[in-house]
């Protein structure tokens, strides 16, 4: 059915989480004002997504077959706890890494891109490796969108954008344009 490269490209470009699924918009709009922060947040998100994919697979395979109706609550609790645990671990083991990435972890855990990843992967019936590749594509896609937006926003800071539109309105419009540009990727590698 779905093959791994296509899953990856699809999550990365064609069905970019932010730009076509509207997932994780809060950090997308909130944190993208600085390039460096965006890159770090993106990496942290990718990491959490990988963790999520593993958690989701474990839950789906071992727990939820007995109680499918607990899917949502299990996902959210397990993911949140796991990430929190990892956060503590990083903080203890490598303060440098923590400063670079860790501070974003709590922020990310409660955003919908993570939960969305778990739910989509489950809905599509992805197995372990498919889930991992999907998470990787989605995470890198998220990072890509975030970094592009951050670059654009930093540059736009030098533009004389009218006062009325500065702020969220402008960010949304930039995101819209970006999303329009990403439409160019539609159908990539699906027809051949």
């Amino acid at each position: 059915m779905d093959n791994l490269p296509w899953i990856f490209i699809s999550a990365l470009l064609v069905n970019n989480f932010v730009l076509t699924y509207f997932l994780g918009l809060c950090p997308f709009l909130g944190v993208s004002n600085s390039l460096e922060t965006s890159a770090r947040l993106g990496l942290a998100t990718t990491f959490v997504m990988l963790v999520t994919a593993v958690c989701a697979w474990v839950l789906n395979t071992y727990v939820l077959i007995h109680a499918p109706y607990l899917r949502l609550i299990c996902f959210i609790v397990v993911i949140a706890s796991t990430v929190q645990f990892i956060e503590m671990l990083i903080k203890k083991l490598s303060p440098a890494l923590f400063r670079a990435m860790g501070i974003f972890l709590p922020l990310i855990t409660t955003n919908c891109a993570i939960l969305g990843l778990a739910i989509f992967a489950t809905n599509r019936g992805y197995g372990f490796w498919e889930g991992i590749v999907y998470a990787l594509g989605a995470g890198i896609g998220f990072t890509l969108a975030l970094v592009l937006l951050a670059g654009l926003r930093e540059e736009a800071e030098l533009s004389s954008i009218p006062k009325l539109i500065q702020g969220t309105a402008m960010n949304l419009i930039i995101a819209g344009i970006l999303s329009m540009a990403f439409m160019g990727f539609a159908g990539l590698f699906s027809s051949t």
Partner: protein
Amino acid sequence: MNSLLVAPAIMVGIGLFFGTILAIAQRFLKVDEDPRIEVTNELLPGTNCGACGQPGCLPFAEKLVAGTVDPSQCTVSTKENIEQIAEFLEVDAGSQEKLVSRLRCNGGGLQAHQIAEYQGFEGCRAAAMVSGGGKGCSWGCLGLGDCEVACTFDAIHMNKNGLPQVDTEKCRACPDCVAACPRDLFELVPLSQNLFVQCNIPLAGEAATQLCSVACDACGKCVADAAPGLIRMENNLPVIDYSAGGPAAPEAVFRCATRSIVWLEGEQFQDQESRKAGGV
């Protein structure tokens, strides 16, 4: 019907499992850090303006918790906020009088003469680069509003006479305007000190008034009319020294023909003259 049991069982199981793991983690992986720092930081305004003399809000919070600074040194916070912090940290808020930024110049477009026409980027520091921006008085306000842009708190607006009007309510005495002005015209003074010299020209007599009709010509009348020692002349300008004499009274300004020394209550340039100028 076994799901009636399975669900709660799983839930409780997960709750217990992760509760335990996190509890253990809390114990063994905890990194010591005074939690008060974070709380204090959240109570601060987060503008990272540096008005407190620290490089930003977080360092200020650290110092607050360490007890080396007073909460009131953050001039940007509202009074309630400062009290909240003080209460939280159980320290004295410290008292600091409200400071406002005042302009040592009264020579707007109508009073100070222009000797050449400046063309180029609309900014004071930029204009100052080009033969002083063409303003006759090379100590006075250029009127291009670098300070207006610099003020984070929207406290400065250029009035119609081309002078920056500081809103005493909004001014938080962050020193942004002081730093921005290429002519170094702003001074942070306590709001309660009403006597203020709004001229910066070190020339005396006609040399001064020739450049600007409201220039201080160093006539010395204010020195004579004020309480002894309160005002002295330095570099052809009156200097007010509250520690050296007093008390200050409005009489000192009555005979100043150019309104170089004024008795301020509230904002500067509120007098009729600049109002009229605004109407022109």
